[in-house]
């Protein structure tokens, strides 16, 4: 026998206690959705896991109303310290149920258990811990004293990191004092619903977080609902664009985290073995279903052949298969639709003359799979160098000078992330300075930390998640948005603007919020006060 054919080491599914049917989580309870339910399947086996409800327009209205009641009720009146306690409690419960959440995530999403266990779930807990700490320190978020929560946030998240994206959205929103209606992606609703159970366990006041499931129509109904004050969306650029149009002129605040086509730049003095690992981690982590994936490898021409050779050798050791096996490196593609898209784009790559190499690995019969693939001889005009593939496919391009590397890296409609590999610190700083990308990793890739803001340039979206900046996306500076008298002299803080009924917090501006809204309608968001 070959040692490298490691005996199966499947993670046990025994911590999972799934129901057959899941309802919507509205106002602290699971309720049946009024749309047509759908099944969620395991992409690795195509086996049925559970039935998921679909929220129709009325369900959305209920969820938004519940969130509004919770905002006007306990949540906006609660001290930051107390909100923080709930967030800490959620974080601890996520840790307690880490194994269960990891197994559910791998089952429903198809990602390898080692990633859901070692990356996704620990980061989820880290995100809640981090923002729990912020809840009573909003005065220091950089917006001035007593920033105000926005109200009800409508959040739509993608299927690539289902629970982690939920944490990125919910943790800062709650810390800032907002309430939430969140819609997970239709293929990966399961962990969001388990998270709803955690919220019940944590005794979070009802309605503070509502989770509505369904497909695109449900998401459109949510972001189009007039009762929400803030839209946070992570997903494709096409949908993000549609949401931006829909939200235009409504006064809803909007943050978008969209696609990417990140350049991973390898200079000839790079630490070569670690660069190879970084390239692999950059594009084959999570089957390449990563918006910030390093899908364009820009390698200095002088070391191109060596890098490609080493990369092929390394890819040949990747293990594709059962996501629940602890030794699996590459799991299943999340859905048939995504697999079809990857196939279409790679076919286009071949048709345009790029040279394809695919790792030799056995593909299981059932489920959706795509073997790790690299394309060499790619030119900047090829579709595989321009469009986001969102799969385990790497396009290799070359450059000759740092200036050319920068020009090629920036030559994309996207700008979410980039990587630089070099032993020379001054070069790293100089190049990073010129890259138009929200995150630039140096001698590493796909590293996330709750304290670090994340977001894009250009078609990769706007707004930042994570860090202080991510908190600011859920806050209004006191007096800033509904500002009435721009020339107003710095005024002593007026405590308790009781008539606004918004937050019971002091305002930094002399004008009442009501006046402010009148005089600056264009800048005004949907005010909670106005709805009363």
């Amino acid at each position, binding site marked *: *026998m*070959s*040692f*490298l*054919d*490691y*005996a*199966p*080491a499947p993670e046990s599914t025994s911590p999972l206690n799934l129901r057959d049917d899941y309802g919507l989580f509205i106002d602290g309870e699971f309720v049946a959705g009024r749309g047509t339910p759908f099944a969620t399947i395991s992409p690795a086996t195509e086996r049925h896991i559970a039935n998921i409800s679909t929220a129709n327009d009325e369900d959305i209205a209920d969820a938004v109303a519940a969130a509004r009641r919770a905002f006007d009720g306990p949540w906006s009146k609660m001290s930051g310290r107390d909100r923080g306690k709930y967030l800490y409690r959620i974080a601890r419960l996520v840790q307690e149920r880490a194994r269960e959440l990891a197994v559910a995530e791998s089952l429903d999403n198809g990602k390898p258990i*080692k990633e859901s266990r*070692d990356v996704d779930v620990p980061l989820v807990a880290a995100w809640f811990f981090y923002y729990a700490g912020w809840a009573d320190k909003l005065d220091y978020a950089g917006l001035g004293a007593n920033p105000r929560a926005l109200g009800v946030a409508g959040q739509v998240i993608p299927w690539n990191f289902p629970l982690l994206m939920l944490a990125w959205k919910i943790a800062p929103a709650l810390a800032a004092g907002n309430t939430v209606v969140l819609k997970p992606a239709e293929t990966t609703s399961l962990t969001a619903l388990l998270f709803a159970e955690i919220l019940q366990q944590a005794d979070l006041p009802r309605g503070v977080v509502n989770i509505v499931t369904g497909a695109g129509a449900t998401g459109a109904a949510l972001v189009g609902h007039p009762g929400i004050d803030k839209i946070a969306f992570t997903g494709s650029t096409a949908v993000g664009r549609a949401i931006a149009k829909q939200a235009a002129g409504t006064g809803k605040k909007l943050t978008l985290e969209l696609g990417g086509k990140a350049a991973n730049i390898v200079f000839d*003095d*790079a*630490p*070569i*073995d*670690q*660069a190879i*690992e*970084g390239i692999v981690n950059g594009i084959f982590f999570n089957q390449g279903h990563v918006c910030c994936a390093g899908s364009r490898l820009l390698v200095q021409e002088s070391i191109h052949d060596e890098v490609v050779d080493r990369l092929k050798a390394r890819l040949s*050791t990747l293990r594709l298969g059962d996501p629940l096996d*602890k*030794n699996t490196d590459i799991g299943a593609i999340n859905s048939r639709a995504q697999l079809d898209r990857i196939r279409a784009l790679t076919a286009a790559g071949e048709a345009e003359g790029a040279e394809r190499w695919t790792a030799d690995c056995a593909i299981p019969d059932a489920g959706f799979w795509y073997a790790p693939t690299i394309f060499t001889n790619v030119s900047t005009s090829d579709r595989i160098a321009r469009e986001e593939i969102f799969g385990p496919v790497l396009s290799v391009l070359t450059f000759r000078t740092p200036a050319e590397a920068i020009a090629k890296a920036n030559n994309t409609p996207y700008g979410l992330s980039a990587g630089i590999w070099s*032993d020379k610190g001054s070069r790293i700083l100089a190049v990073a300075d010129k890259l138009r990308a929200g995150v630039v990793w140096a*001698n*590493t890739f796909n590293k996330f930390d709750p304290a670090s803001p994340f977001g894009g340039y250009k078609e990769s979206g706007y707004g930042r998640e994570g860090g202080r900046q991510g908190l600011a996306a859920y806050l209004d500076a006191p007096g800033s948005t509904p500002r009435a008298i721009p020339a107003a002299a710095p005024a002593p803080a007026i405590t308790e603007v009781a008539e606004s009924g918004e937050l019971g917090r002091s305002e930094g501006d002399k004008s009442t919020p009501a006046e402010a809204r009148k005089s600056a309608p264009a800048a005004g968001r949907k005010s909670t006060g106005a709805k009363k």
Partner: protein
Amino acid sequence: MNASSPGQTVAFSQRAVAVLGGEPDEATLRRYLHGIPGVDAVGLEQRAASLGTRSIKTTSKAWALDKIIELIDLTTLEGADTPGKVRSLVAKALRPDAADPTTPRVAAVCVYGDMVPHAIAALGSAHGDPDQGLISVAAVATAFPSGRSSVDVKLADTAEAVAAGADEIDMVIDRGAFLAGNYAEVFNQIAQVKQACRRADGTYASLKVILETGELNTYDNVRRASWLAILAGGDFIKTSTGKVSPAATLPVTLLMLEVVRDWYRLTGERIGVKPAGGIRSSKDAIKYLVTVAETVGEEWLQPHLFRFGASSLLNDVLLQRQKLQTGHYSGADYVTID
């Protein structure tokens, strides 16, 4: 393995000349060793940690445990070593688990030079090539563990051990010379020791070059020293003496395996790797097997290309082996001390 062909001396220097692009002197060595790509410590340690998360179960674990035993250099390197202690060590090497005769033998016993005759006498007919199920004798030499002695003394130390019948010589490099940047000095010492490994019949004892990575301190140094040792003719590169902390670590071993892999790509020649010191549990040893298999390939998991320098590791492996066979853990009193 232990018998390199007589013509090899020439081959060693030719190999260095070909790779360096000139005679191995201070200038060529410095240019070459400083031209090797750097090592990113964070990335290296991450890769090692991720290899360490492989889950080796059931049949794979059973295979791995036996393989670990076959790759052990069972070691005693104490000032208090006596012929009796060495005989006891050899008995353990021959029959690691008194209760289970199916347990494989270790690859070699590793002792100080003056204990070589006692080890050979104790082994008797079991002395020989581990490929044939026999046990080799390895001797540390060259003023082990510090290496702080004149070249003549180091060479005499080596020659004496070889004359006494040692199959393998574990030498230490001159870390002082290395850290001072005198690469040619280190190179020449290794090359001379290699010559001192020559037996009367023209064959060579296998040479393991101990880098003492705990004293080299940086990964860049470890990588350069690994290349240097291979260029100078080492058959094996070994992490540590076991007398300096930290001894073997997974990242350092991974790095040395990467050098060995690159050397193979460059020359087609296979060099061995020996992590030594600090590997005490089966769980840790399995991580090393995984790292070898996934870095240089499974063919390196054989006594001529990979060894564990260890003593207490063996008993932990035996306990794990008993657990796999019986389904329950026994205890320290169910395996013998040597």
